[in-house]
């Protein structure tokens, strides 16, 4: 009786969760194809005009390009610095490695608003007036926890005697790292990088304090757009973002396998 009940409950919970996750996506995608000029569901008719209007909408493409740049560059910087830092921590090359690792992952536990205000004041204090640079620095801090956590997890499961084995078989130390360490931690590193990129790309609470009139990231621009002219252009933009995310997941699956990425 009990097992059957819990089994049924399990399915109910799963269905509810799926419903909860998919409904907004379905609605947004559906609305993006509407003919009507208002944001209403169910959509009326079918047209692609809101997709064309993205081009004409004020600053939407520019902000998308900026967000992509900031997300890509900050993830790349975090990837290099975070991986080296994680190796140093796991191999106990520095004293107090655990404290360092916790500190590097701490931005994840601090509310974004607090971080945003802190970055704004810090930037003023050191006289950093360039919004682009400030955004980049803030997003390196923001993406670092994602990289650190996944790389640390991959490294803790990596058996470093494999590096010794590669050396005894004729590989110099750097070459052994490249031939044995890198392929084995790559799935974890890739998943960390993907999450970091997404976290940076859709960040609102930190970025809102650091943008200026000419430098606006996509989430902020979208909200502005929604306030000023609430038409389905926003829905079309969102639908494209969903498509891009799905494509990114498929590419990652082909490269390293989603299963391996999510188990780490």
């Amino acid at each position, binding site marked *: 009786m009990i097992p059957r009940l819990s089994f049924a409950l399990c399915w109910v919970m799963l269905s509810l969760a799926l419903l909860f996750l998919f409904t907004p996506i379905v609605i947004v995608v559906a609305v993006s194809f509407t003919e009507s000029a208002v944001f209403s569901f169910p959509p009326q008719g079918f047209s692609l005009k809101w997709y064309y209007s993205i081009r004409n909408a004020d600053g939407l493409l520019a902000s998308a390009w900026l967000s992509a740049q900031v997300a890509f560059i900050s993830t790349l910087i975090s990837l290099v610095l975070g991986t080296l830092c994680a190796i140093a921590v796991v191999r106990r090359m520095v004293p107090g490695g655990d404290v360092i690792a916790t500190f590097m992952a701490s931005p994840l536990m601090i509310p974004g608003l607090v971080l945003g205000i802190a970055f704004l004041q810090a930037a003023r204090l050191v006289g950093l007036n360039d919004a682009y640079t400030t955004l980049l620095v803030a997003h390196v801090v923001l993406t670092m926890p994602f990289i650190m956590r996944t790389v640390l997890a991959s490294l803790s499961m990596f*058996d470093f*005697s*494999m590096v*010794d*084995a*590669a*050396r*005894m*078989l*004729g*590989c*110099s*130390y750097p*070459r*052994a790292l490249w*031939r*044995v360490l890198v*392929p*084995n931690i790559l799935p974890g590193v890739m998943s960390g990088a993907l999450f970091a990129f997404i976290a940076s790309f859709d960040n609102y609470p930190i970025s809102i304090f650091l943008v200026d009139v000419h430098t606006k990231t996509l989430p902020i621009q979208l909200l502005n757009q929604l306030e000023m002219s609430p038409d389905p252009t926003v829905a079309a933009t969102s639908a494209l973002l969903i498509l891009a995310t799905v494509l990114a997941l498929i590419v990652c699956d082909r490269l390293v396998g989603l299963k391996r990425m999510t188990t780490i």
Partner: protein
Amino acid sequence: MNLVATEAARERAASANKRYLDVAAVTKRFGTATVLQDLNISVARSEFISLLGPSGCGKTTLLRLIAGLMKPDGGRIAINGSDLTQVPAHKRNIGVVFQNYALFPHLTVEQNVAFGLEAQRTPKAEIGARVQNALALVRMQAFAERRISALSGGQQQRVAVARALVVKPSLLLLDEPFSALDRKLRETMQIELRHLLRDLEITSIFVTHDQDEALVMSDRIAVMNEGRIEQLGTPDEVYSAPASLHVLEFVGQSTRIGGTADASALNGTASVETPLGKILAPLHDGSGVSGKVVLGVRPECIALGERPDANFNEISAELTDIVFFGSKTALHFQPPGADDRIQVEVARVPSGIAQGVALKLYWPISETMVYPAP
């Protein structure tokens, strides 16, 4: 090990190159702790030597120093006359089978074995054939395409051996390679590996804390303790003539009886006063012992009953336990006034004995070992 094999091992050690691997006055410190102090050991060509000792005795450190994965703080390591002390690990051409095998999970069995050949830039045409040969040696050809995670522990070990041997190393180091296998498989693999390495005539150094493993596999055993080699000898020598109390305790079963030796050793025989009475022991190197001593006897030397003549020691003790092992039975005795129990091994339990009875025991004086008490 039987006498013929011992003789063969001796001959092999004596002939050709006695100092194929030469470790001279090697010292290794970690911070303020000295792990190895002026350690010397020479290994003959195609000899199989075990480094046997408890954990923390420095045996793994010595292995890593020979491999080049660590640098010594002093001393010299040479193979076949060429000094390797300053040569980095990847240029030493030494094969290692690691404790957990350290196989590469992102590669197949075949790719694992080919790894060393590729790293040493062996011509492509040659690699395929050599990999197949190596896999054939360990009977793993059928698994060439498999992933490492799809192999059992014993199969993984075979692959690790093939991977180490395929590059034709000048020396093979084995770091407790059997510790992850269950007992039955371990015994099979020990014999199999021993035969393989003997056929290939490859010089091997084998690190283990398992005395049975060392006795079964080795030409010679180096018993280590606290960074020193306490005894280096054939399994027979190490077992029947332990050089120190530590070696006696570490290798094989034994009964230890404390006592006080009489200062006047009579024609090479020490007379020791113990709680069980007077026990005689031969002194081999002529050096007399006096004061507190520990006597040692192997369980298979002790027999039940009264001694036939004066060439035997005799005591009496109470039988406390009968432990059945199948091929043999161990009888445990608790002698009066002694802490250590006495172990006796018999093939069959004689009729009419039971726990709680006092029995007489005897063993040859020549089989009694005596060491200064620690």
